[in-house]
């Protein structure tokens, strides 16, 4: 990416932050909070998610046979099924239906699949009046705007804006102002348009193969009216919406509203087996009783492939098809919360899972546009009701985009510095951040000169121009003496013979070369609990290259890490990590990078340092050598996104509380720094906007005097920039020797 491209991207993000950011933030945070509250009431939430995922896995596995079954069931009911290869094919068929009915007007309920087809434009070219009946969609249609959210398409529009729009467009007798007035105005107007529509179009959230039914999840009632008022119903849906049987719907009904808008259930779950028995509402025959009618309804189910069969064959992107379009991944995404779908979208889909959808249905270019907005924080993995590994899909697509390459103009600048496995055309910025380990090694070896060089003006502006490192960010300073060197000289203080447990403390790149102090603190804390500690030289986990989409480099690192740790693991030593994102590699991503057995062995023996301390204390270790909260500071604690996804934040909290610290904790999804993301010129404003939500919590009266404690490196950096006071790792709080430093 050139410097000009970067500036254009930054400008667009800045613009969206200013114009749409506030409305998006308020709404997505509301949805997300609702999700937490609503799923907390479900005793068997995890079991429901597992069940839902199993149903989708099975359905996608058996998709061709289920398509045949749906066809048979719908035809037996008297409906028609059309399997469309792509958007053009689907639109041709739908236009034919409209033409056969001599339709002047089609009323539509909200359907992302129909957005994917751009069917409105196709019908309008034939002179058909297409009316969106979902209130949010209608607002966008009136405003000539595009959806910015899968579930709440007009989420970026404020009430004031909608009122202005309606008052200008429709010039009502009394200007509309309140949400109630706007809603009733829309209801009445749309009611009239539905009344003499010729065709009703809906999507389908699910389709059941055994009965040929469609399920629609709505709250307004417009889908019910669209399906039941005209005599012809066209439902469009991707083939992946099929589940085997009616009974399979139950877990999805329980999960979809909770996951999306945070409602236990939406007002209407329509279970329609079309053509339905309900009589047509014919306002041309207004006084004929419904019971006296004998309607011959038409139903067309248009199933869309449009790249889905190929997606099914793609081992990395296949999970995309499990998506139930609930929007939980968007709502939980810290970046989405700040900037919304117009920055975070491709041609149709937006938010976390959109990369998979766009890559599948529109191709890689459409996905590339916003792929980098996924920082891999992984909060969506926990939010997703079918447990899709969305960050992995994003990483795979990022890797494929990298491989498309560019002209590699500045290749010579980093050739010697970047021994990686990636193609020559890889974006220079990505290459630099992906090779942070090499940089850190070099920087440490030449410190303090390297720190001084990196901080001088001309170098900073060159870095900003060539690789897009934002000049407003303070750069981490490298330590001349690494943690590994320090420990080698110092040696262990608890002999192996006296210890119940032996630990390999993983010297992650940041701890080893930059924040050596937190590594030392970890050693002292573990030793004070009677543990024999070793710190061998182990390569970086591969997190940095992985987050840039450099999968082969990450894969190579994973093998080297495993090689360096295998003997320790075999000898019964535990591996303890300080940096949560590295532990997350061992526990999650290595499943994709290592042979299954190696992955399992490392996963089973690796721990977060505070999780390990918790385990030691629970098993009777003597914690009197640790610094306790008696004389220690009150704490404002920010966990780390990947740590929370792994469910490890609770150990830090438990240890601090057991040692009598007074702790308050942030509840934001991510600090916004997310590894290298916040350093990038084009994302700096977005990163800071995300960070503001965390800063707000820690500047509340209750928190502002407290010691700021953060589990992750990038969280510490971000908090430092946001609050102008330094943050420390929780293990440093427990370290008796760091007492003076913290006070």
């Amino acid at each position, binding site marked *: 990416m050139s410097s000009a491209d970067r500036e254009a991207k930054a400008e667009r993000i800045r613009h969206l932050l200013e114009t749409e950011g506030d409305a998006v933030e308020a709404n997505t945070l509301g949805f997300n909070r609702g999700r937490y509250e609503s799923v907390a009431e479900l005793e068997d939430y995890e079991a429901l998610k597992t069940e839902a995922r199993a149903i989708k896995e099975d359905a996608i596995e058996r998709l061709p046979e289920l398509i045949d079954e749906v066809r048979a069931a719908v035809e037996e009911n008297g409906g028609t099924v059309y399997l469309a290869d792509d958007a053009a094919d689907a639109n041709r068929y739908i236009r034919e239906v409209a033409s056969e009915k001599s339709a002047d007007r089609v009323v539509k309920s909200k359907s992302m699949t129909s957005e994917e087809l751009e069917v409105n434009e196709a019908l309008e070219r034939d002179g058909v009046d297409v009316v969106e009946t979902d209130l949010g969609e209608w607002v966008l249609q009136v405003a000539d705007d595009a959806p910015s959210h899968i579930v709440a398409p007009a989420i970026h529009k*404020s009430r004031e804006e909608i009122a202005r729009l309606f008052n200008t467009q429709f010039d009502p007798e009394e200007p509309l102002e309140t949400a109630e007035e706007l809603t009733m105005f829309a209801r009445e107007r749309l009611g009239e348009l539905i009344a003499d529509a010729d065709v009703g179009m809906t999507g389908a959230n699910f389709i059941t193969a*055994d009965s040929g039914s469609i399920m629609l999840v709505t*709250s*307004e009632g417009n889908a019910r009216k669209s399906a039941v008022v005209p005599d012809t119903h066209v439902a469009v849906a991707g083939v992946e919406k099929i589940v085997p049987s009616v009974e399979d719907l139950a877990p999805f009904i329980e999960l979809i509203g909770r996951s999306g808008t945070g409602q236990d259930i939406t007002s209407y779950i329509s279970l329609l*087996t079309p053509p339905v028995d*309900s009589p047509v509402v014919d306002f041309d025959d207004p006084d004929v009783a419904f019971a006296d009618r004998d309607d011959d309804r038409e139903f067309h189910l248009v199933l869309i492939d449009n790249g889905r069969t190929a997606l099914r064959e793609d081992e990395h992107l296949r999970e995309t098809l499990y998506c139930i379009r609930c929007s939980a991944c968007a709502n939980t995404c810290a970046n989405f919360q700040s900037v919304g779908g117009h920055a975070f979208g491709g041609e149709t889909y937006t938010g976390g899972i959109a990369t998979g959808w766009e890559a599948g249905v529109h191709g890689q270019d459409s996905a590339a546009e916003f792929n980098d907005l996924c920082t891999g924080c992984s909060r969506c993995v926990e939010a997703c009701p079918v447990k899709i590994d969305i960050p992995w899909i994003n990483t795979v697509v990022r890797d494929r985009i990298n491989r498309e390459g560019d002209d590699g103009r500045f290749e010579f600048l980093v050739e010697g510095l970047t021994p990686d496995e990636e193609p020559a055309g890889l974006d220079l910025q990505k290459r630099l951040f992906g090779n942070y380990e090499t940089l850190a090694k070099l920087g440490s070896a030449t410190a303090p000169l390297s720190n001084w060089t990196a901080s001088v003006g001309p170098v900073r502006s060159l870095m900003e121009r060539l690789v897009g490192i934002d000049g407003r960010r303070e750069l981490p300073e490298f330590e001349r003496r690494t943690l590994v060197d320090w420990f080698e000289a110092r040696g262990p203080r608890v002999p192996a013979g006296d210890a119940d447990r032996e630990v390999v403390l993983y010297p992650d790149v940041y701890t080893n070369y930059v924040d050596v102090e937190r590594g030392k603190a970890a050693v002292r804390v573990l030793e004070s609990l009677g543990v024999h500690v070793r710190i061998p030289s182990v390569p970086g986990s591969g997190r940095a290259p992985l987050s840039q989409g450099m999968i082969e480099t990450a894969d190579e690192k994973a093998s080297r890490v495993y090689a360096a740790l295998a003997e320790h693991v075999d000898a019964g030593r535990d591996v303890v990590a300080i940096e949560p994102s590295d532990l997350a590699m061992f526990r999650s991503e290595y499943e994709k990078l290592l042979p299954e057995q190696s992955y399992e062995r490392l996963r089973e023996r690796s721990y977060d340092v505070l999780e390990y301390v918790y385990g030691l204390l629970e098993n009777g270790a003597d914690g009197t050598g640790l610094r306790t909260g008696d004389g220690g500071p009150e704490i404002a604690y920010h966990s780390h996104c990947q740590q929370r996804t792994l469910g490890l934040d609770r150990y830090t909290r438990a240890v601090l509380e057991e040692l009598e610290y007074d702790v308050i904790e942030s509840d934001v999804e991510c600090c916004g720094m997310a590894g290298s993301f916040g350093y990038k010129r084009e994302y700096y404003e977005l990163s800071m906007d995300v960070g503001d939500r965390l800063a707000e919590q820690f500047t509340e009266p209750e928190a502002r005097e407290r010691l700021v404690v953060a589990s992750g490196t990038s969280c510490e950096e971000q908090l430092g920039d946001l609050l102008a006071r330094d943050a420390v790792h929780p293990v440093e709080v427990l370290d008796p020797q760091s007492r003076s430093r913290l006070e």
Partner: protein
Amino acid sequence: MSIDTGVASERFEAALADLDVPVTYAEPTAFDRTLRSIARDPAIGTPLPFESVSLPEWVDEDPTPTSLESAKTGITAASMAIADYGSVVLPATDEGAEQVSLFPDLHVAVVRLADIVPNMQTAIDRLGPHLRDGGSAIVATGPSATADMGALVQGAHGPKEVHVVVLRGTESETAGETDE
């Protein structure tokens, strides 16, 4: 909510209270009077498939598009209610039950006490054969609603209010109260 505490009817009532949906219990003998106290004129309805009661004569049981547009109240039968969610299951009928439950501002759903099932899975399991037989149904929970205009508003396209009438003293009253 699958935390099964209390009998299904009590949990149903609690869930409706959360939705701000009033519920009234009625013996068959007092059914007309109960409806009268809830409904606003003009009221339309579709025939109730219950042995013990039928719609009173002031309810127009033969709705047309015209009466659908002018009615203030729509009265239809629910085949089931789901305790966990406060939902009523509204089958589509060729007499227009779907429209009657959807167009007027107030929807009165009549459900037998015996047809309150504890949870979603039970309801869907019972609906399976119905759907495979060509039937359709709406699982309706509270009034229609939207937040698209900047605040939550009830009555976006469907009813602004819902009132549930639970019919007592009908056959096999306890059948729905056991977990499956």
